[in-house]
C-alpha cells in the first residue's frame, strides 16, 4: 500500500522519488501494470518525447482508469500531464489517456523553445487541493517544448508566447506541466498537498 511511481522509460525518476520521500511519502517505482493493483495513488512522471508514452499502452490506460474508479488519486508530471490529454502533436499516432479533452501542441512564437526555467502559475478561481496554501503567481520550474491547451479542468495557466495549462485538476486527477520536485519550497508544498489528497482518499 504505497504510492506507485510509474517508470515507463521516459527519463530519470531520481528527483521525483527523492522529493516525495523528503515530504514523507511511502512510494515505490513500478514498471509492470499489475503493480497498480494495490497502489494508493499513481504518479506518472516523465520527460522527453511524447512517443515514450507509447509504453503506456491499452493495458496501462485500462488499469489507470480502473484505479481512478476505485478512488485512487492520479498525478501526472510534465509528460505525465500531457498524457492525461487525448494526444500530442509531438507523436500524433500515440494516444494519450484521454481523460481530458484536447491535444498538446508545440510552443511557437518569437521566444526560446524549449521553455526552460522559472515561470509563474496563474491560479484559477476554483478551489484547488493541489495548490492549497500556495499563492497565485508562485514560481515553478519548467522544461518542455510541447504544452497542453487551456481547458475547463485547467487549474493554473502559464504563458510563454501562448497561454497553456500548467496544472489541471478534476476530482482525483491532477497534472503539473512544471516539475514540483524541482520547484523549491512551493513544489514540495504541492507534493505534500497531494499526499493529503491520498490520505483523504484512503
Amino acid at each position, binding site marked *: 500500500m504505497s504510492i506507485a511511481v510509474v517508470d515507463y522509460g*521516459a*527519463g*530519470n525518476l*531520481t*528527483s521525483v522519488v*527523492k*522529493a516525495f520521500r*523528503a515530504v514523507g511519502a511511502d512510494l515505490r517505482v513500478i514498471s509492470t501494470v499489475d503493480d497498480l493493483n494495490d497502489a494508493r495513488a499513481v504518479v506518472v512522471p516523465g*520527460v*522527453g*518525447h511524447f512517443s515514450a508514452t507509447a509504453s503506456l499502452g491499452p493495458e496501462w490506460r485500462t488499469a489507470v482508469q480502473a484505479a481512478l474508479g476505485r478512488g485512487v488519486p492520479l498525478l501526472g508530471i510534465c509528460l505525465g500531464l500531457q498524457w492525461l490529454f487525448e494526444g500530442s502533436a509531438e507523436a500524433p499516432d500515440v494516444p494519450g489517456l484521454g481523460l481530458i479533452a484536447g491535444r498538446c501542441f508545440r510552443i511557437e512564437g518569437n*521566444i*526560446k*523553445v*524549449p*521553455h*526552460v*526555467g*522559472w*515561470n*509563474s502559475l496563474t491560479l484559477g478561481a476554483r478551489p484547488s487541493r493541489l495548490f492549497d496554501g500556495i499563492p497565485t*503567481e*508562485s*514560481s515553478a*520550474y519548467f*522544461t*518542455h*517544448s510541447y504544452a497542453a491547451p487551456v481547458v475547463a479542468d485547467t487549474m493554473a495557466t502559464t*504563458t*510563454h508566447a501562448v497561454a497553456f495549462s500548467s496544472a489541471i485538476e478534476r476530482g482525483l486527477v491532477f497534472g503539473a506541466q512544471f516539475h514540483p*520536485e*524541482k*520547484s*523549491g*519550497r*512551493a*513544489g*514540495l508544498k504541492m507534493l505534500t498537498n497531494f499526499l493529503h489528497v491520498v490520505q483523504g482518499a484512503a
Partner: protein
Amino acid sequence: MLAKRLIACLDVRDGAVVKGINFQGLRNAGDPAELAARYNEEGIDELTVLDVTATLEGRRALLDTIRRVSQQLFIPLCVGGGIRSMDDARAIIDAGADKVSLNSAALAHPTLITTLSRIYGSQAVIVAIDAKRAHGTFEVFGRSGTTRDTREAADWAREAADRGAGEILLTSIDRDGTRSGFDCELTAAVSSAVQIPVIASGGAGTPEHFADVFSSGQADAALAASIFHFSEHAVRDLKLFLSERGVPMRLDW
C-alpha cells in the same frame, strides 16, 4: 513571464569547491553541500557543479559530492566536467544530477549529444562551449580551454542544438575569472543563432554585468562562481537589483 535565471557554479576538485582565474591558480572556497544549501536558501535558481579534476579518485569523490549536494536540493542541478561517455553521464544522473554538461566529449563525438538526449530527454543535455576571441571571430576550445577546435562558437551551438542539446552553457575564456564583465557580443552572437536557451558564463564582477548580459547579451541565464562565493546575501541583493532594472526574476523562494 519566464524569469532570467541566476546559476551558481561550484568548481569542485577532489570534493572541495575551488575557483580559478583563467582556468588556473585554484584556491579553496568551501564544502560543496554547505554552499549548495546556502545558495538554495538565498534564492539561487539553479546550481552547476563543474568537476575540474580528471583523476580516478577525483571522479569517485565527484559522485559522492553530487549525492551530498542533491540530497536536500529541490532546484535543478547540472553537473559537468570530464564526462566522456554514456556511462559517465548515467553515473552522474543516477547520483542525483538533473542535467549533464558536455564539452570536450561533445566536440570529439557529437553523436553523444543525440544518444544522451534520446535516453534522458534534451532538457538533461547541456552543451558547454568555451570560446575565445581571435581573428575577428569566436573560436571554440576544448580540454578546459587548452585545445583549439576548428569550429566557431555560433556554428557549433547551432549544430549542438540540432543534435538534441537542450541548452548551451557559453563561457568566455577571455573573461573567465577576470570580473571584468560577461562577453556580451559573444553571448548575443550565440543566443541569436539558436532557439534553445543560452547560459552566459565568464567575467561576472558587478550587478551591472548581469544586467548587461541579460539585455545586450540576450542571455537566458547567467552563471557565476566567485561573486556568489565570497559574500553573504549576494544572490538576494543581485536579484533585487536586477528586478528593479526590469529584468524578470524569481523573487518568491
